[in-house]
């Protein structure tokens, strides 16, 4: 339990209306987007300035109270769950886009800005922030940076870390520091900026960020490739890339997902296809035309049974709606879903998919595959029910083996979700003890009292 005097101090810092201790509110901050983890904080605080956050951290550091930063709570690794209780530092009320600099193609944002709000604002200026985690409707910039989020656009554009020029951070001790800067190149000293990106909120609170932007592509085209064997789809991905076309996105839907989408909203997807790939090419119109032709040509050459080019944006939107509906289809079919985000080198996609199929048989569980085939980041989803212990246990075993399998294929256990609580127990499987030890020492350097999002990443 947190002391009354601490609550009073917090109220002094952020105002009474921004400190919540009602039981109901605490319960509403006990979860994120994961299914297996819950823990209530002792208090929820909504700061509105960097200075307030600094004061909160000084207080927490003095009193040795755990602080878990949280934005939209869309996390799927358990990273924003206050597993040790203490303070939830919620940044949702710091949601201003401070500056859009068209000349330098940068934007300055507060941590509580929701990605979709940013996308809409930037769109009006003919700009965009390329990283596109699929939680963009709720995810906030602070969390996106702290998790180094990625999405379908990674194939061509990369992930969050490639688009952050600098951050203002409040350290667990309350100090306010600036890491990185506003320039595209910057080699001044150790690259501490990138230690913060993907630190999962364990090193400090990001209070401001300088983003690198791109001009919006003038044209887009969507192509759907149909395959009678998922392995051929996997091969198509690297054949297209090796032939010099880098699509903006390459997404994969397997047979199960195709059929569920067709049940939910019939849109003429090929129901007997083993897999479908969706490509999007973007850029200047002439290049988009050429790249489209090239994809059609290569896909056919390497075994696609059918290749369709969406004639207009409406048709293209239909295909992408299908891709988005993929997750809904999965979630609608089971009480509990493990949505994995293992990532393998692109060439190993067919091997990983086959591994999933094999495990589905071995443990007699439904494993569905969809994901960002273009960057090797797949989301095998295991359908189960947390209330059915016997089934759930089998699903857990299958998940463990998928992760083992991905690592054996030279991949990583998480491509974009982060470790948080969800994947802690696999960390040792991936990282050498000396590496984990280094991480712990870095953590201790920033956070001597271990108050910043404690209990995450390693066990």
């Amino acid at each position, binding site marked *: 339990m947190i002391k009354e005097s601490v609550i009073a101090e917090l109220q002094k810092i952020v105002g009474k209306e921004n400190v*919540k201790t*009602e*039981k*109901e*509110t605490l*319960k*509403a*901050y006990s*979860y*994120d*987007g*994961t*299914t297996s983890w819950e823990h209530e904080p002792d208090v929820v605080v*909504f700061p509105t300035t960097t200075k307030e956050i600094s004061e909160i951290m000084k207080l927490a550091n003095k009193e040795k109270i755990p602080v878990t930063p949280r934005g*939209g*709570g*869309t996390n799927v690794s358990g990273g924003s769950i206050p597993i040790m209780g203490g303070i939830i530092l*919620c940044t*949702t*009320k710091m*949601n201003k886009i401070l500056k859009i600099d068209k000349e330098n193609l940068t934007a300055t944002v507060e941590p*509580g800005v*929701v990605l*979709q709000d940013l996308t809409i604002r930037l769109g009006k200026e003919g700009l965009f922030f390329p990283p596109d985690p699929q*939680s963009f*409707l*709720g995810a906030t910039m602070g969390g996106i940076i702290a998790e180094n989020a990625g999405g379908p656009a990674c194939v061509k554009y990369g992930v969050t870390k490639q688009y952050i020029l600098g951050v203002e951070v409040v350290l667990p001790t309350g100090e306010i520091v600036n890491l990185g800067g506003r320039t595209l190149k910057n080699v001044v000293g150790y690259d501490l900026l990138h230690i913060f990106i993907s630190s999962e909120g364990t090193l400090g609170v990001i209070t401001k960020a300088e983003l690198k932007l791109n001009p919006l592509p003038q044209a887009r085209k969507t192509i759907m490739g149909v395959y009678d064997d998922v392995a051929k789809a996997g091969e198509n991905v690297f054949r297209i890339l090796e032939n010099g076309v880098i699509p903006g996105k390459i997404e994969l839907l397997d047979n199960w997902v195709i059929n569920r989408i067709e049940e939910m909203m019939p849109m003429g997807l090929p129901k007997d296809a083993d897999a479908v790939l969706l490509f999007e090419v973007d850029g200047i119109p002439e290049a988009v035309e050429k790249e489209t032709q090239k994809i059609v040509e290569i896909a056919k050459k390497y075994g696609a049974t059918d290749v369709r080019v969406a004639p207009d944006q409406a048709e293209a939107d239909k295909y992408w709606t299908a891709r*988005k*509906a993929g*997750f*809904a289809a999965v*979630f*609608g079919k089971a*009480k509990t*879903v493990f949505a994995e985000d293992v990532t393998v080198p692109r060439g190993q996609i067919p091997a990983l998919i086959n591994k999933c199929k094999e495990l589905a048989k071995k443990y007699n569980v439904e494993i569905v595959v969809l994901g960002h085939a273009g960057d090797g980041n797949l989301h095998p989803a295991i359908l189960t029910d947390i209330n059915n212990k016997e089934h759930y246990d089998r699903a857990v075993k299958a998940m463990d083996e998928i992760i083992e399998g991905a690592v054996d294929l030279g991949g990583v256990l998480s491509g974009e979700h982060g470790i948080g609580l969800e994947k802690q127990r696999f960390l040792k499987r991936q990282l050498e003890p000396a590496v984990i030890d280094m991480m712990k020492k870095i953590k201790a350097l920033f956070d001597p009292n271990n108050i910043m999002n404690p209990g995450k990443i390693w066990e």
Partner: protein
Amino acid sequence: MEDLKELKKIEQYADQCMKCGFCSFFCPVYQEEKEETAVARGKNYLTKLVLKGEQEFTPKMGEIIGKCLLCKRCVAMCPAKTQIDRVVVGARAQMVRNKGLPFIKNFAFRKVMANRKAFGRYVKLASKFQWLMPKTEGKVRHLPDFLKALGQGRNIPEIAKVFLRDKVKRVNKPQNGKEPKMRVGYFMGCATDFIYPELGEKVIDFLTKRGIEVIVPEEQSCCGAAIYFSGDFETGRMLAEQNIKAFQDVDYIVTACGTCSSTLKDYQKYLPDNEDQKKRYEAFEKKIKDMTEFVIDVLKIPPEEFKLKKEFEGKTATWHDPCHLIRYQNIKDQPRAILKALKGLKYVEMPNADLCCGMGGSFSVYHYDITKKIADKKMDGIKATGADIVVTACPGCMINLIDNTLRSKMPQKVYHLLELVE
């Protein structure tokens, strides 16, 4: 163990939520509050805890469940297809079941609104004191500060001198004197009855002109929206029975109030307590048509037959989607088809046409500060169109849009779609 009858009914819907949090982007209340208890995911989670016996219906819980516009924007966009409206309404019903209604609502719902004649008398009585409220503009009055507890300084429309029910005949024959091609019951709704009687006369005129016989049963009551959406299912069912009984032997039942049409259709969704009720409410639903869908989908009136009233010639209009039309009934294209068919009127789409106006029935009474903030966004959308008039098809929205256009000192006037049509 407390009886959780109403919650049990919605348990399957509450279980759908996967906690992805996407609802936060679409929730007008969360967009203002930015706190998890405001959003569907939070409300759903807490309701599930009640079902598990880990949370009680505390006053705070009542406040959280109460703070929802039931605009269904989150429902429309939910990837897991969670019907959060059912969860919220079910939780409210359970609360009423366990704790009863607060005094004010008990009086308003059961003693006033449930009895149409009494309701009329109270409204009439209130209208005698209208002179206390200074006139803002035309037929709109401004609630002065001493009535803040009720309306918090808002502009409310003037109560009609003669109510619709006192003006219209029970049976209205087709104007061409021929045998009617269809018999239609007209459900007027409270706002049309007491505030916009001309709208009701317009509906009857429009339909009888087209060879339809219009029946206006005197026994019809309030649709029950404010009542059953607040969780008073008992009174809601009473009204359902009364309205079903009032409308026998008609081919269709039409109304020009988006909230009424959806509320009447949805008796079968929220209220049934047994199979018999379910069956009868479902049969009733099949006859209900909102006027916008009735003229387009049933009467199939061709575009050239819609004539613009003279006073609107040369004007630019924009359309506001009432939540109860677009999301409760999937009525989106029909009103636009009518507006676009009106020669002499320029139609401009509003950027946030489907955003709730912020009214949410009694929500705006309890959370007028949030209502105003949500309405501000709606006003920005209206301003962006450069339209002269804002058109909608729900008197509830009209009341709130009028209040907020006036409050924002905007020149746009608000009309019901049918007011534009000859």
